[in-house]
């Protein structure tokens, strides 16, 4: 298969970037999207040009590094998968593919398609953890957790922190990410202990870092590679508001 690629090139955080057109030829349909970029980079290196910088690590949908905006969709046109999980057979032969970095004030471009997502780490550090003692092995039945609660917690815990939610949101809001973290812990007894403090601290950090307000458009859940539901945002709202009214 042959493709025309329009890729955002930007030398460093300070430079002004622009789109550059590339052509890749004889790509097997079973090539993954990132492998296709590897092939392009190989060609560029051979031609003595600067390869395209893009983030990636696990290449199996669990690390959340591969953050590309492809033809208008975070993580490409497929629903519920990360960029590293899409294959060239999902595109048409001869198609033009536009590849952009995340565009959100809190995620500045570092180089080409790589953005700085440390804002999400800072939100996590503000409260996305538990500090109760859990190191000794408890009896398996000591704290019964219903299947429904465990499932909901696990669904929220599937978040890989990729940033697609804020990158997709017209308000640059990080609510889906924060909600997933707060919700996954709020549903478990170990996480409940610090529930109120966590919700307040993470929301405060999110606001401080300049993320936007949530208008409930639902764009985030449509583009989230883990299909995290905005029902978790409703839970975050409950957690936060009840914590505030208790103060």
């Amino acid at each position, binding site marked *: 298969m042959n493709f025309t690629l329009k890729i955002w090139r930007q030398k460093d955080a300070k430079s002004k970037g622009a789109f550059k057109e590339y052509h890749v030829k004889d790509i097997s349909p079973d090539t993954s999207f990132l492998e296709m970029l590897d092939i392009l980079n190989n060609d560029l290196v051979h031609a003595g040009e600067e390869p395209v910088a893009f983030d990636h690590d696990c290449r199996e949908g669990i690390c959340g590094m591969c953050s590309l905006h492809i033809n208008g969709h975070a993580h490409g046109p497929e629903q519920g998968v990360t960029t590293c999980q899409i294959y060239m057979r999902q595109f048409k032969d001869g198609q033009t593919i536009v590849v952009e970095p995340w565009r959100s004030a809190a995620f500045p471009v570092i180089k080409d398609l790589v953005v700085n997502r440390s804002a999400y780490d800072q939100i996590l550090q503000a409260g996305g953890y538990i500090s109760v003692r859990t190191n000794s092995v408890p009896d398996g039945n000591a704290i019964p957790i219903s299947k429904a609660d465990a499932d909901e917690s696990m669904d929220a815990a599937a978040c890989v922190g990729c940033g697609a939610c804020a990158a997709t949101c017209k308000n640059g809001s990080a609510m889906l990410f924060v909600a997933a973290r707060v919700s996954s812990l709020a549903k478990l007894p170990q996480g409940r202990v610090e529930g109120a403090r966590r919700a307040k601290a993470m929301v405060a950090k999110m606001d401080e870092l300049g993320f936007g307000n949530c*208008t409930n458009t639902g764009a985030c859940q449509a583009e989230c590679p883990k299909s995290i539901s905005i029902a978790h945002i409703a839970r975050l709202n409950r957690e936060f508001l009840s914590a505030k009214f208790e103060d």
Partner: protein
Amino acid sequence: MSCFLSNSSLGRKLVMSVSGCFLVLFILFHMSMNLVAIANAWGNHPFGLNYDAICEFLGTNWYALAGTLVLAFGVVVHIVYAFILTFQNRRARGNVRYEVTVTEKGVDWASKNMLVLGIVIVLGLALHLFNFWSKMQLVELLGHEPENGVELIRETFSNWIYVVLYLVWFAALWFHLTHGVWSMFQTVGWGNDIWYPRLKCIANIVATLVFLGFAAVVVTFFVLSLV
């Protein structure tokens, strides 16, 4: 506590949701009152329904004035917060936009255009206050005799330009409410995957009732002016 309503994103949204809910309730009340004017459109008072009596009742009594002030406060809060939120959201979005954009699956057009719809609603509101409030409650406040409600409606909507402007206004309100009504529940934390389709259905029903109720008055009086 007073500060989280202004310095936290979720607090600001709470203000938006509560003020929006208040406006929805007012709009439903206003709409049901207007329906009485239709009953009086042919010059009689079936079942004792009397629009002019309502107008008189809501003239310049202390409770009507207090209600007007509370309402004005709600409108101002909703509008001021709408601009603050939208301004912050645009800043958070950043200056560089995507080259290719799509409408994400399941995302309503209205939800992405709440401020634009709101501005159309404000313009309609200004026209409406000029058409009616300034000739009724305001006149009464200044110590003069207000115009007759039904006759003022009849006169206003015999002009097709007002008919069109009011219908555009109601359409903007319809879009605003299809998103706003379910969004206000989500904002206070009342929503889950089972309830979203139900809440959106309720929002569509409320928006449609409001649209039909208001439009009925305008259309009835316009048609009557033709015959």
